């Protein structure tokens, strides 16, 4: 795949379709790849990489990149194409300045999962088809790829690229995923249990803003939490209320816009399952207002900028069975 991508990128650079390429750059190790912009075939040859650890959602970089001179080639995974559509719908990117190449995706690996499987001191990772052979300072280890999948990929919502100018390989299909299972499990707990669960999770928050800054839906010119005029600006969880405020408001601001790409949980240094907040809103929206997938359709009206006369009352929350 990597070779095909480099080849195609060079062609598009050569024929003038694009003047730069948004992809991933090789790092110190197999897994620490970095999103990067490549302007020449030489740069591509030098460090362009595409492997199982290219999990970052590149669409957010297009907010800035698509406003620059000339067209940018962007390699996008199915997840990233949903985000691009959503950003297009919100006029956050200039779609005409993007040449999107959709990539097939069978799920990305999570290096944390490898480490959790006991691989310490990773010096190399060899792709063995269904397995990874992990070379470490303390010996080799084999881990099934399925066990190393990121959570969001294990519960993949769609392998379909929903917007692209060209596809590399076959387009996938929307998946019948179990992504709401954990949300449902939480819903079925008692309020006390839910409170204990979230208190435990959110109390770890260090307000590093990685979730927000990685989120393709959080592209505000100025976030309310950074804006002293907003009245709720803060940079530290000075009280446990602040953690909740930040995460509730953030989830609310992206409600109906979040494509469930899972970047928030991927980047959280404290491993807080933030996607469970967004998925709660997605699940509620699906159940109360009809199925909706943000980013699936550029022309769709988001559920929070829409209504029907017959919408349920907020008391529906109070009438739910489990307390």
């Amino acid at each position, binding site marked *: 795949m990597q070779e095909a991508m480099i080849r195609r990128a060079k062609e598009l650079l050569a024929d003038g379709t694009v003047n730069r390429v948004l992809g991933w*750059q090789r*790092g*110190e*190790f197999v*897994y*620490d*790849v*970095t*999103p*990067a*912009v490549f302007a020449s075939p030489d740069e591509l040859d030098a460090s362009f990489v595409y492997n199982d650890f290219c999990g*970052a959602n590149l669409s*957010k*970089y297009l907010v800035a990149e698509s406003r620059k001179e000339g067209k940018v080639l962007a390699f996008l995974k199915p997840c990233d194409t949903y985000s691009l559509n959503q950003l297009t719908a919100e006029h956050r990117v200039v779609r005409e300045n993007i040449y999107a190449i959709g990539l097939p995706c069978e799920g990305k690996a999570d290096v944390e999962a490898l480490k959790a499987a006991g691989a*310490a*001191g*990773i*010096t190399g990772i060899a792709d063995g088809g269904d397995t990874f052979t992990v070379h*470490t*300072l*303390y010996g080799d280890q084999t881990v099934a790829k399925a066990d190393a999948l990121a959570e969001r990929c294990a519960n993949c919502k769609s392998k379909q690229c929903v917007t692209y100018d060209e596809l590399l390989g076959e387009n996938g299909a929307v998946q019948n995923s179990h992504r709401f299972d954990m949300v449902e499990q939480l819903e079925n707990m008692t309020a006390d249990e839910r409170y204990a669960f979230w208190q*435990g*999770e959110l109390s*770890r928050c*260090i*307000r*590093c*803003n*990685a979730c*927000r*800054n*990685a989120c393709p839906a959080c592209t505000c010119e100025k976030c309310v939490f*950074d804006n*002293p005029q907003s009245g709720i*600006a*803060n*940079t*530290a*969880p*000075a009280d446990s209320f602040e953690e909740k405020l930040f995460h509730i408001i953030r989830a609310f601001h992206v409600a109906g816009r979040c494509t469930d790409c899972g*970047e928030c949980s*991927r*980047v959280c*240094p*404290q*491993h*807080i399952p933030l996607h469970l907040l967004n998925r709660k809103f997605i699940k509620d929206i699906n159940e109360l207002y009809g199925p909706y997938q943000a980013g699936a359709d550029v022309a769709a009206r988001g559920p929070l900028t829409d209504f029907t006369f017959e919408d349920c009352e907020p008391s529906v929350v109070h009438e739910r069975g489990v307390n």
Partner: protein
Amino acid sequence: MKSLLLKDMDRLLAALAENRTLYVPTDGAGGAEYRLYQPGTPLSEALNTNRSAKDFFFPQTENMMRFQMRGKEIRIEEPTRPDEDFVVFGVRACDARSFELLDKVFLSEPVDSYYQNRRAHGVIVTRCCGRPEETCFCTAFGIDPTAPGGDVSTWQDDQRLYLAANTPAGQALLNGVAHLLTDAPETAADDAKAKTRAALANLPIQNLPLDGFGEENLLAIFNDPRWAELSRACLGCGTCTFVCPTCQCYDIKDFDTGHGIQRFRCWDSCMYSEFTRCAHGNPRVSQVERFRQRFMHKLVYFPANNQGDFSCVGCGRCLQKCPVSLNIVKVIKALGGEKA
């Protein structure tokens, strides 16, 4: 040097916790963290905690004072300073070194009395790394993980824990639990140290080119065009800053509680757009400048002011945590070569 059978570890911790608050690294849902010692909970075997040990002396938020308003009068209240003695057990050499770097900042004039107070009440027990990982590069900054420092250093082999006091405070701590410890020769931990040294020799990140970061190259590095490229992917989050043991920037904020003003300080990050914002605006307006600031500070400004000590201890947390895998090693490798 003292020693203790590993099976008696919990007895030792329980004894330490008797007279002082004891913090130990344990595993939890989000990874290893320093937590209040709970009898029976095993120590984490993770190389490092998610957050560094700097929190004990420089917590993320710290109350500084309160203002009370009665009608149109204002009254100021000093906060009660924490005065309990505590022990942090299991600090790695890198984090232990970070305290020395923080001391240079907070204990030089004007002394930061909040930090000083916490420092005075804390005893640090370090732990020699058993299995350093690929992200480790403390040796690049002259840190020897086999001599982890702190008030008490410890080493460990398959059977025993070896302890040696480095300071009077450390000695006092060991005296308090002397009944659990047996004497051991000074060479008792040598095997453990040798094992660690062998592992260190295989680390992929070594021999970083730090020579070029001298003060004389300040402007050349500052103006290096590669910053733009190096920082291009930076999301501007504060993860690197907040997990870093040596980042020391903070903001002071007033919070109106409804019945008074709480003045507190909290960590700030030079990666943030609001960092050091003042009346005229923000001196560093783009992410390139913010990114450059962080590394210029660690690699150039700090050593220039502190006898050449870099403000990095090579703990590797930023390598592990950066959402887009940017880190100080990539910067050093790109810019650290000898300047003309």
